[in-house]
């Protein structure tokens, strides 16, 4: 009962060729670089993301140009507090058309934020000059500033609000 070694058999030849090929790969590793830069880290070590992180261009809005951004046709939702415009598209649940605070979308919400009220009376019509907020009490101004802080950390500051005829 001797051991038989026959390299000529198909199975043995196939295995032998495979071993030769793998050993050649180990001793002489491939050094070809891909012709296009991969966009996924799984596709290669030297990869580059396809796009930049999204950024919003800071623009100057008037009450009239701000008004369309009320999320009605699935667009961006903006609102303004004390002259600063915030992009609150992330809070569609609150500020979208069916949200609790939907009145504020596309409008100057300063008075509402200060007085902690979401009534329609807090909003000034778009064709009138901006609400000067002169009759607010100091604690209401503090409240409004608190809201500005909250919005600054939660949402993106993407513009400022000026009078209709300023542009």
């Amino acid at each position, binding site marked *: 009962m001797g051991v038989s070694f*026959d390299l000529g058999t198909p199975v043995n030849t196939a295995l*032998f060729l495979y071993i030769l090929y793998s050993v050649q790969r180990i001793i002489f590793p491939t050094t070809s670089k891909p012709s296009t830069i991969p966009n996924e880290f799984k596709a290669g*070590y030297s990869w*580059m*993301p396809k796009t*930049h992180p999204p950024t*919003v*261009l800071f623009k100057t809005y008037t009450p009239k140009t701000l008004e369309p951004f009320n999320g009605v046709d699935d667009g961006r939702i903006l609102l303004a507090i004390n002259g600063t415009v915030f992009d609150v598209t992330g809070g569609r649940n609150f500020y979208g058309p069916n949200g609790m605070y939907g009145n504020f979308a596309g409008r100057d919400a300063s008075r509402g934020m200060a007085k902690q009220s979401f009534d329609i009376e807090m909003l000034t019509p778009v064709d009138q000059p901006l609400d000067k907020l002169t009759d607010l009490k100091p604690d209401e101004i503090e409240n409004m500033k608190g809201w500005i802080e909250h919005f600054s950390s939660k949402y993106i500051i993407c513009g400022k609000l000026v009078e209709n005829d300023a542009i």
Partner: protein
Amino acid sequence: MGLPFNLSEYLITDDLTILLALIAATVFLLNNLYKPQPLVHPILLGRQSDAGRARNPKESAVYRNYGTGLLGRFPIRPSKEVYILADLVKQESEAPRTLWSTKITNTHLQDRVASLGTGLLRLARLQPNESNVLLLLNDSLEFIVADMALASHCIPSFTLASSNLLSSVLESHPPSAIITHAFLLSQILELIYDAGEKTGHHTIIVVGEPSSQAMASVASNVKVLKFSEVEREGFKVEKVISPLPKPSDIFTVSFFEGEGGQLQSAQLTHENITAGVTATRSLLPLSHTPSPLDTILSTHSLSTPYGRAIAYTAIYEGTSFATQRSSELYHIDDQQNPSDGSDIITGKRYPIPAPTILFIKPQHLNYLVSEILKQASKSWLLFPIAWRHKLAGIADGFLTKDSLWDRLVFDNARAKVMGDGAAALRAIIVSGGAIDAEKMTPSRIALSVPLVNTFIHPLVAGPVLASHAFDLQDFPAVTNDVLPSPAAHCGPPSVNVEAKLVGVDDELVENGADPSGALLVRGPSVARLVSVEDYVDVQPEGDKDGWIIMGVRAKVQTNGSFQVLSQI
């Protein structure tokens, strides 16, 4: 009969099959599963900086280092007890280390600083908060001692980034005293006498022994003291204690030449330098921070904020430190530095232990790498295989200097080029110019240590942009119409710097192109810029909100790394 019969004929197996199957299985596992881990996970290299979510028209977003984050505060001190320059000398560490050619402990250093400070106040009649002293010294222990002594008494020190600024600085900002080398004494005296209308008193403190001719030409309104005498005087008497400086006090002013050739100065406060030390420490990852076992060699002069930050990082971490002799500013004779970078090898050395961390310039790197590769390619059989293996490792994000190929090929080459201490080298930081992108991978292979590419500026203590130490990514060359061969990227902003680009084409950026424009930075390690026009300090218009113009055009790639394109 038929198929089954033929099939079993083909599938004859015997003992050799078992052997070959085992070998094939082993080889398969080796090939597919034994892949070395990348030094840093590539997912982190896809987001190297944190970008702001809103941007002004014609500008890019504000970028910060991803580790700091947009909402995080900038780190301004290496540890919570360090507020001013004197705090950088750790009192608790007892071990001596070699600074240039002197072995010294921290306590001894503090004693020397206190003695010199007292001696200067008494003999040179300097007034805290009112005088200022020009340090015309080459990088040496005396420079550090003088700088710290003056800072502890709230006397700003002046330094020059290049020696040809001397006459303009003497005319526009006459110092109360000058500390200089003995061989420069006659030159200084000449300059003082030439500016004849200033007949006030001058005090010059000289390091070393002045020649008798120089001493003979000293006029009556000039007092020349010896550095060692001043120190001895301070040592003998009771030390003068001045109130501690505040971190916002200016402790040094570094004069340099601006782009238009005009004289400009960087006013560094204590906070700037502690922030610079923090940024310089963060160049290497936490696992590789300098320790008292390290030796740092720098080719950046201490008269620049960046060079000073490197020196004080070395002092803070307790490493041995020296600068390259060839990067001295003031020479006895007019010797020129070789511009090909060979001075990193051939230049005279200080007696420090073998350097473990190098802070060098691109020409030094290119010279070292070309020499090492020349030596390594002499082993014609093994070098190609070693090169291929190293390249394959880098393609997977892995690099080490302890591999088989280093032992066979590269260690010898490095030892032949850099001397016996080559094996001690563990990190290299390159600043002060651009490196070709296609030279980065050969440099990494030749040196096999973390290589950091940085961008520096005469106004910033510490690096402005610094690449990740373990970033081994290599991208195929993209033809760039701005530069003939594109420069390697410099990584994200440093840990306490935020950067933005201005003059950006909004349309291109909204369509997804890389923003490119003039680079502006802001941060605690950026010094205040003051221009000197007609001998009067002028605050430049600059950008509001404290953004400082760097004077270069840069581009941001999608992974948050910056590529410096050209000078403006």
